[in-house]
């Protein structure tokens, strides 16, 4: 019983950090801010490094590792602000040919009840998987029969669900099938589109609850990495910047902001790592709630520590904040997450 990463896991995390530092350092990050089109060469390199195939069996060309290892690697991606549909690529590596190697970029969009219906990097995806809720009235696709031929469905909104209720909950889409609403993404590194409707022409058998759970956990890991990075940025700045003749980190007001930031990271990290070990739904939801809070509030506190400099476009602080806001809306979060955690208290009468 030891929640800390093993030596092997630390080595894995370090190699991910090194790869990202080499291939996605600050210059590349700022270049991506100006042109967020996905770097396909980097994507293939991530594929070659096992980023997507990490949990596929070695027999299938994968690395054969587990969810805890994936979480450590995603934490690094979050630290580095690496853009792109990373969660999709990782979770669909065993489902969509070419995803595991990074040859093909695949998107994943949650259109279930409360799903954000947002599609990351729509221009860069070679294909797209839609996941819905099972059962009637839960989804907003055009229905399997709503369109014919090879064009996208023409429906412009959510009609009544005509599916049987026990059909598949996932649909494959070519990138030009869905009807999209334009959206100027708040995160300059992550172009977005909102999916208005899409044809249910190509159903896919996927374990959607599991997919959602793992997407939630990996998104929490990205948030955790960002939260950890913004503490470092705040501490670096506070240890360097002088005002009133001293480094501002000597002021309690700054010191205590930084201390609270670290606490959020440590709490979120305990929750995320533990959830990756059990893989259970509730710990995953709890981890996302805490990692969301850590990422958003740490980015804001980091901005406050940076003062006016933090408010500039040139500082990286806002990139962390905007990405944290984006991830907050992805997968399980907010009201639904807290309701699920509350409900569990009633169910859990016997255990602690």
């Amino acid at each position: 019983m030891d929640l800390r990463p093993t030596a092997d896991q630390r080595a894995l995390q370090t190699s991910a950090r090194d790869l990202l530092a080499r291939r996605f350092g600050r210059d590349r990050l700022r270049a991506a801010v100006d042109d967020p089109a996905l770097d396909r060469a980097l994507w293939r390199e991530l594929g070659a490094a096992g980023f997507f195939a990490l949990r596929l069996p070695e027999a299938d060309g994968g690395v054969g590792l587990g969810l805890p290892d994936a979480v450590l690697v995603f934490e690094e991606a979050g630290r580095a602000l690496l853009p792109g549909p990373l969660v999709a690529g990782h979770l669909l590596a065993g489902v969509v040919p070419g995803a595991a190697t990074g040859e093909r970029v695949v998107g994943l969009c949650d259109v279930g009840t409360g799903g954000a219906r947002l599609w990351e990097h729509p221009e860069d995806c070679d294909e797209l998987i839609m996941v819905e809720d099972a059962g009637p009235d839960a989804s907003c696709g055009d229905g399997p029969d709503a369109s014919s031929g090879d064009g996208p469905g023409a429906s412009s909104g959510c009609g009544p669900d005509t599916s049987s209720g026990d059909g598949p909950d996932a649909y494959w889409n070519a990138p030009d099938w869905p009807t999209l609403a334009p959206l100027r993404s708040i995160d300059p590194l992550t172009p977005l589109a909102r999916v208005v409707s899409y044809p249910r022409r190509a159903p896919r058998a996927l374990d959607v609850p599991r997919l959602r759970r793992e997407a939630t956990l990996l998104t929490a890991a990205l948030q955790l990495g960002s939260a950890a990075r913004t503490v470092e940025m705040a501490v670096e700045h506070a240890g360097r910047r002088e005002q009133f003749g001293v480094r501002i980190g000597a002021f309690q007001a700054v010191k205590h902001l930084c201390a609270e930031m670290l606490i959020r990271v440590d709490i979120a990290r305990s929750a995320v790592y533990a959830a990756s070990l059990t893989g259970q739904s509730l710990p995953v939801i709890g981890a996302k709630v805490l990692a969301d809070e850590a990422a958003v509030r740490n980015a804001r506190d980091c901005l406050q520590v940076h003062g006016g400099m933090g408010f500039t476009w040139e500082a990286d602080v806002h990139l962390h904040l905007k990405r944290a806001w984006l991830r907050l809306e992805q997968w399980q979060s907010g009201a639904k997450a807290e309701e699920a955690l509350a409900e569990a208290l009633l169910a859990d009468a016997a255990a602690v």
Partner: protein
Amino acid sequence: MDLTYTPEEEDFRARLREWLAKALPELPARPDPLDWPGRRAYDLGWQRRLYDAGYGSLHWDAPPALRLIFLEETELAGAPYVGANFVGLLHAGPTIAAEGTDEQRARWLPPILRGEAVWCQGFSEPDAGSDLAALRTRAVRDGDDYVITGQKTWTSHAEIADWCELLVRTDPEAPRHRGISWLAMPMDAPGITVRPLRTLAGPAEFAEVFLDEVRVPVANRVGAEHDGWRVTMVTLSFERGTAFVGEVVACRRTLGGLARTARANGRWDDPVLRRRLGRLNAEFTALWRLIQWNVGAGGEAGGAPGAGGSVFKLRYSQARQELYDAAAEVLGASGALDADQEWTAARLSSLSYTIAAGTSQIQRNIIAERILGLPKGR
């Protein structure tokens, strides 16, 4: 305690409201935010209309109640913001009025009031933010001129300003607060380079200003030489006082808009969000009352709001951020993440409120030391 207005004040309000109803439809279309010359013309044109109608100096030398009515009514009517006239009307102007010579007042104030001159502020420097007194821009006396070299930052409207209220160090040997002077610098003087400064909220509103041996006549100094810190404190107390009246009115209107939007899009069914909006209602109502309080108190103290402005500024900057966080909840994911949504853009801008014009940390020090009398410390 009295919330009523005198008949004269009510009369002023009625005439102003009537005038606004006529004047606003005659205004030209608002310029694009990136069209600097257009914005200059628009903002100065509006100030000229105010001046011609007798409302040109309401911002600083009217009795407090009239100023409040003016700010309230212009905001309610959707009149243009003070915009490019901000520094002239609310910072430099009042400072010159309070500290300048008769000649200086005659030279600089009428163009501000008539909508003929745009001013910008040259206070902050890269290494002098919260610690403004650490400023290093040097002014060396050479005959009847100062020769100025240094760098300023967070200068809004620098691209279109005619004048800059500039803080410079005139005595590098003196204690930090004692060697500073306040100058009016013409922005067309040789040696000035303006470079736009992009913020996290997007297009450039601010600029960096580089000064390379810029000559400014000694006659442009307001207040005694080396006495600029005291002069500056006058200006800053204005900034922390009534500068936000219009914004609070606007926030209350936004709050109503949030509620109606939430009801329209179904988010109103969430009691957590509803109660949050209810609480913000109490908050902004109280902030409005606190402004009225400060205006009343400032009137008695001679027009310059005191440290009480820090109390308002701290709570307001926090409340404004909470307002736009609530807006993100109302909009839902696809609105909160859409940079083209007005409320989402405002949410980004709101992030500067706990930093600009004295961080919240600095304001808390001011309150603790100057109002509560706690011992100075780190």
